[in-house]
């Protein structure tokens, strides 16, 4: 498939000037794409723009926008995923689809190709396409024999008449072939392999082999292939919320059946909404444990859809909705309705998944102990969906009957404060923090906590921690940096 130019305002009028896209190449503007009219008038890709302007003063030129092109190609690839999950961009203007095993769903190879081309043409793209047994053959045919469908094993016949340019080699090699009088792929392939190898290198031999289905050249898909998927096509695009929800639930049910047969559950679910006008929206829901209950899946997607910042816009409706279990895991789901403990655990996990779907998995956290004595690192608040049992035990610092030795609320960043002695040498002191002065009644310290030298290139200074209480009974945990002597508040105790 090849995208030529997307007509911005419908079909171009017949008396519009020839249009070219110019990109900067080696400090000169060079034509990178052009419309049919410009081609007919003798312009070509690679021609300097100044040159073309001299030939055709009426020429309309626009500057190439490569990032936008890449984005557009990605959008087209999204749309193509309705045909097969194996879609790979072939920059600058191509897409490769591996349709093995998918053609029968669309009424055969020819019908599928026609449908693909018609679908893209309807979106305003100039399309060229071909279907063949190998990537290189398909690409060459798309460029030079638009609309071909090659029967299995016929690749050699199909491409031998094509010019050597069809292999998309670098200009130097193509030129060398021409100089040698080898104008078509067939002629090049007819030479002895040792000759080709000696003259052009092993890569070229491999490319010819790959084009003729003598060597493998796989397509790597853009995104990981889902483990399981279920989809529904609509003859009439759907736009109502209830219909979308009920479709998701029924897709979840059929996905659940498959998962149950395999004894698996989904950890990452993706719903894909294909809009009739070619837009695709993907919404993913992650879970803390494998699930396959359609009710739970439906609820999670409901939470997610409710919480979207930019809500799902059906436009003129979706004509395909797909639910993928992108990541599935082995799941033992014994019926444990009598086991209250297990049921409670399951309920909590469902609650966590629900909250994660609504607020994001980074927002629902569980505590895990860490094996360190640095106060802010001694525990970690990790996303509850991924929290696991650790081997490290929680370590109390306080001994029995003692007051707590660590604050209940820990400031993210210790805040500077100043400490003043009321009278030099006396125990009474004032602390000044957040522009308020407090008089201290109790203090205990120092408790020296050294930073772990093995973790840092340059170890931060050790800290001398003190517990203090002011006249109001408020208790703080403060420290003094042993190098700068700066006092900081690190937390407040209950």
């Amino acid at each position, binding site marked *: 498939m090849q995208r030529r130019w997307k007509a911005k305002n419908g079909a171009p009028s017949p008396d519009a000037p020839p249009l070219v896209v110019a990109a900067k190449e080696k400090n000169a503007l060079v034509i990178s794409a052009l419309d049919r009219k410009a081609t007919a008038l003798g312009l070509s890709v690679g021609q300097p723009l100044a040159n073309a302007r001299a030939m055709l003063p009426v020429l309309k030129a626009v500057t190439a926008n490569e990032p936008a092109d890449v984005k557009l190609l990605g959008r087209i690839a999204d749309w193509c995923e309705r045909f097969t999950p194996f879609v790979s961009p072939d920059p600058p203007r191509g897409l490769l689809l591996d349709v093995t095993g998918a053609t029968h769903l669309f009424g055969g190879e020819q019908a599928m190709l026609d449908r693909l081309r018609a679908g893209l043409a309807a979106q305003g793209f100039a399309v060229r396409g071909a279907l063949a047994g190998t990537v290189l053959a398909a690409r060459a045919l798309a460029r030079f024999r638009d609309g071909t469908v090659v029967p299995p094993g016929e690749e050699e016949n199909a491409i031998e008449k094509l010019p050597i340019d069809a292999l998309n080699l670098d200009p130097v090699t193509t030129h060398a072939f021409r100089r040698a009088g080898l104008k078509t792929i067939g002629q090049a392939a007819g030479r002895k392999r040792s000759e080709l190898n000696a003259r052009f290198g092993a890569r070229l031999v491999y490319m010819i082999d790959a084009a003729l289905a003598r060597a493998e050249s796989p397509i790597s898909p853009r995104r990981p292939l889902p483990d399981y998927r279920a989809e529904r096509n609509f003859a009439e695009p759907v736009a109502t919320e209830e219909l979308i929800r009920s479709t998701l639930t029924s897709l979840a049910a059929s996905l659940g059946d498959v998962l149950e047969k395999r004894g698996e559950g989904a950890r990452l679910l993706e719903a894909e909404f294909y809009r009739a006008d070619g837009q695709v929206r993907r919404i993913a829901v992650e879970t803390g444990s494998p699930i396959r209950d359609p009710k739970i899946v439906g609820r999670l997607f409901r939470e997610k859809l409710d919480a979207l910042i930019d809500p799902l816009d059906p436009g003129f409706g979706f004509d395909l909705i797909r639910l993928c279990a992108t990541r599935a895991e082995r799941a033992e789901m014994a019926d444990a309705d009598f086991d209250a403990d297990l049921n409670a655990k399951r309920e909590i996990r469902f609650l966590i998944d*629900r909250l994660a779907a609504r*607020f994001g998995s980074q927002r629902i956290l569980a505590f895990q102990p860490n094996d360190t004595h640095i106060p802010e690192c001694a525990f970690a608040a990790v996303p509850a969906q991924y929290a696991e049992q650790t081997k490290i035990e929680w370590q109390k610092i306080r001994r029995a009957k003692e*007051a707590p030795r660590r604050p*209940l609320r820990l400031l993210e960043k210790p805040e500077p404060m100043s400490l003043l002695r009321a009278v030099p040498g006396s125990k009474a002191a004032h602390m000044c923090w957040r522009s308020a002065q407090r008089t201290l009644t109790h203090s*205990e310290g120092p408790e020296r906590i050294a930073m772990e030298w093995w973790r840092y290139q340059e170890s931060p200074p050790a800290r001398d921690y003190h517990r203090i209480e002011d006249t109001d009974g*408020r208790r703080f945990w403060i420290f003094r940096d042993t190098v700068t002597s700066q006092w900081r508040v690190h937390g*407040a105790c209950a």
Partner: protein
Amino acid sequence: MPASPETIAQLRAKLSKATLNGPEKHARIPLGFVEADRALHGGLVRGALHEVFSVAGHEATATGFVAGLAARVANGKPVLWIRQDFAGIEFGEIAATGLLELGIDPSKFLILRVANAEEALRAASDAMTCTALGAVAIEVVGEHKVLDLKASRRLTLGAAETNVSAFLLRFNAAPDASSAETRWQIRAGRSNPDDDNWGMPRFDAELLRNRRGRTGHWVMEWNCDEAIFCQPADRGAVVSAPLHRPVAAAMESEERRAFA
């Protein structure tokens, strides 16, 4: 026939059961602090909404009080702690090590971070449907229109239905009409000047509202070893005079001794 004192006591007990605990199916969890338990008719009601207001500057203490209440009421079940982002920035994040030092198991705590009060309420009402939870604590800073009587009614009903207790911890806010079962105002309690083992979590707790009993004002201490509220070890603990009420009114209350 003159009734004996025992008969009267028995009848009284029956009467109180019929009127106060009769229609009530939810258990009462004793705090451990005798006088407060007496005012609460045996303890804090499970499956109800309780409000805790922090006096400005005493947020960590109020947090400790709610953590203690939630841990007692949840009784080993998980506690969901919903906190507004601003509370974390302003007053610090809840530290697992801090909970551990209070004798509360941090692995039973789930923390949900939300941006505002609307989200907090929404998450809370969702969480209240999960019967496996022990308690839900909602930590909100400032006054919010959404935290009105309707919201508190909803939380109360949700709590009653699933028996999950809700604690609304308010910072920088004044009490307003609500359907809460109890309402507390918390400031830190001072440690005894001569105590070597100072710094026990001590709460100057004022029970501002109690739907089923009288209010009160006590100084409680949290026993970190047994995870229970208790009488402060020294009798010198003093309740500070409330600013917003005449001292005489407080003097009439049962806590006169504390002022003596």
